[in-house]
């Protein structure tokens, strides 16, 4: 009797918990219209009202982009103390779920919006403006004690990381004839990160297609420690974490197949010669909110105007002046949708894509 009770008690608790995990749809906020009565004339205002701006701007999304948005928010809030800008970190994917449900105003993204997310936004009638804000390079690194690797081709990286390599490519000598007979240990970001998505897309050719037998961590500092302590290591993560740990790691140049070995640096990432592992970072702005709320409008403009100064301060690479002004134009014209059309376009430069649309 008592065993039956215990088991059924446990089951009921479980059922309640599982039921609680089901997401429930949230109501989208009712649209606001700025209406002022001036001498019995009803004027619907489109331009910002003068006087102190106040309000809350909800930002969420990628942990990679968050430091940039935090820096912008920090400076913006100094200038407009009545505006509150909380910056959430729930990952690019998790952030888009909230953004496309209308729960947030601005979305930080370390990759362009995906097809499934475009559909989710369309279903809820959320129009968004896609704005590039910075570049990030993915750095491939080995231990400083490794004296035989200075440059790897994309083909070699693919050979190491593709799903078929699992359990097979386990020795450096298998990567290239002439490499010593030493075990190969791999380090990389966890499968939920945008960095993992981008690396697999750029190297293997398909997002999330990777071997599974590598040491994965969502915390890049753990990867730094791992590679720094293992002479046979190879790993990859964002360039910002390399910059802070130059003495513990050795950067590997990448040959995209044209015979030229390029090391990632602010210059090579910004001008696109470090390929295919440099990526643009984005913010997505909810168009309706930007039209309704002055503070969002001000914030986005402030973001694009000050990114050039603030982006390097947090370890990322700013876009060119031309790209920032193209982005600002795109915002002013309220061009909605994604230039990537839901497919990652590795290799195509951002300037080409943005100009193609002007």
């Amino acid at each position, binding site marked *: 009797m008592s065993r039956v009770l215990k088991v059924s008690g446990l089951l009921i608790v479980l059922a309640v918990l599982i*039921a609680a995990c089901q997401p429930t749809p949230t109501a989208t906020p009712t649209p606001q219209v700025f209406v002022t009565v001036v001498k019995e004339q009803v004027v619907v205002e489109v331009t910002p009202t003068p006087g102190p701006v106040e309000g809350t701007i909800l930002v969420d999304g990628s942990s990679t982009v968050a430091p940039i948005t935090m820096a912008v928010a920090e400076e913006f809030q100094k200038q407009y103390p009545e505006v509150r800008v909380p910056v959430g970190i729930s990952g690019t994917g998790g952030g888009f779920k909230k953004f496309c449900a209308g729960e947030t105003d601005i979305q930080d993204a370390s990759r362009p919006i995906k097809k499934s997310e475009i559909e989710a936004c369309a279903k809820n009638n959320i129009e968004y403006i896609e704005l590039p804000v910075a570049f990030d390079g993915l750095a491939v690194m080995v231990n400083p004690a490794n004296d035989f690797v200075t440059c790897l081709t994309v083909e070699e990286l693919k050979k190491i990381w593709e799903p078929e390599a699992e359990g097979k490519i386990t020795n450096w000598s298998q990567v290239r004839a002439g490499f010593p007979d030493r075990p190969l240990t791999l380090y990389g970001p966890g499968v939920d990160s945008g960095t993992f998505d981008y690396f697999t897309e750029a190297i293997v050719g398909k997002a999330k297609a990777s071997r599974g037998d590598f040491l994965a961590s969502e*915390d890049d500092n753990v990867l730094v420690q791992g590679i720094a302590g293992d002479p046979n290591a190879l790993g990859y993560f964002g360039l910002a974490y390399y910059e*802070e740990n130059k003495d513990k790691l050795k950067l590997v140049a990448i040959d995209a197949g044209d015979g030229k070995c390029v090391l990632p640096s602010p210059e090579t990432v910004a001008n696109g010669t470090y390929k295919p592992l440099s990526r643009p970072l984005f913010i997505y702005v909810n168009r309706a909110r930007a039209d309704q709320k002055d503070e969002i409008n001000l914030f986005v403009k402030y973001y694009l105007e000050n990114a050039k100064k603030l982006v390097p301060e947090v370890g990322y690479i700013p876009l060119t002046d031309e790209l920032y002004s193209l982005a600002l134009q795109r915002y002013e014209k309220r061009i909605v949708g994604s230039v990537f059309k839901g497919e990652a376009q590795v290799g195509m430069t951002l300037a080409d894509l943005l100009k193609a649309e002007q």
Partner: protein
Amino acid sequence: MTKGIQQTTSSERRALPEPFIFEPNLDRRKVIARIWESVALIAILLGIGMLLTLLVRVFLDGLPYLRPQLFTEFPSRFPDKAGLRSALQGSIWLMVLTALISFPLGVGAGIYLEEFAPKNVVTRFIEINVANLAGVPSIIYGLLGLGLFVRGLGLGRSLIAGVLTMTLVILPVIIVSTREALRAVPTSIREAALALGASRWEMVRDHVLVYSMGGILTGMILALSRGIGETAPLITIGALTYIAFDLRGPLDIFTVLPIQIFNWVSMPQEAFHRLAASGIIVLLAVLLSMNALAIWLRNRLQKRW
């Protein structure tokens, strides 16, 4: 052995137990005692050693950043200007509100289950569930909070959603510790009160609660100490957020100390890791003072029967 026993038949001998002969062998037993003593000593030294190493490292890293700005400034991208202001506000608010909600609920439930509830199938069922819930990982409560408070009740990423989630996390612990404290009061006290004509509630209010209040409060504060260090359930409800403004009330967005520490630890710059260490010192200080308060309350409120 006596001759009488030796002369019995073999079948009788098998039925009788072998006479036990005590061999002192004192030296060997003393050696064994010493060995076990050292094993136990090593066990405690290992634990203390680990804790000390951790504390020394944290203090070496964090002390330079333990300065007034740490309490007055908001988080910043410059480690030298960064502080815990919003996180400290969030943690204090969270603890006070959680205490206000979980105390009546937890202690009330404990009193009912221990003093009033009839011993039947339903109460047994509830008791088993409470005990089970005390062992559920806190992230599960985070998911429950996300579904129930953040989305279901539409509270969003607000402080009150965090408070209610945290209440769920510590409620089973409070109920269990309240019951333990009530159980420590001897039955004779209850019988004496009832024999003199007190109602059940009068007996609980004027006698049982008075004697067990020290224990109840200790359990309550230890549960809250667990709550103040919890990160997982709050991250689940979306509190992993950069906040550079003052908390305005229960419906406002918030962050707490462990989350700010988590955030700083994951930054690439070494200086932020040191800042995280100073955050850990602050969190430890808050925790230790809460525990000290628990001990003080227990000593003050402890009434003997």
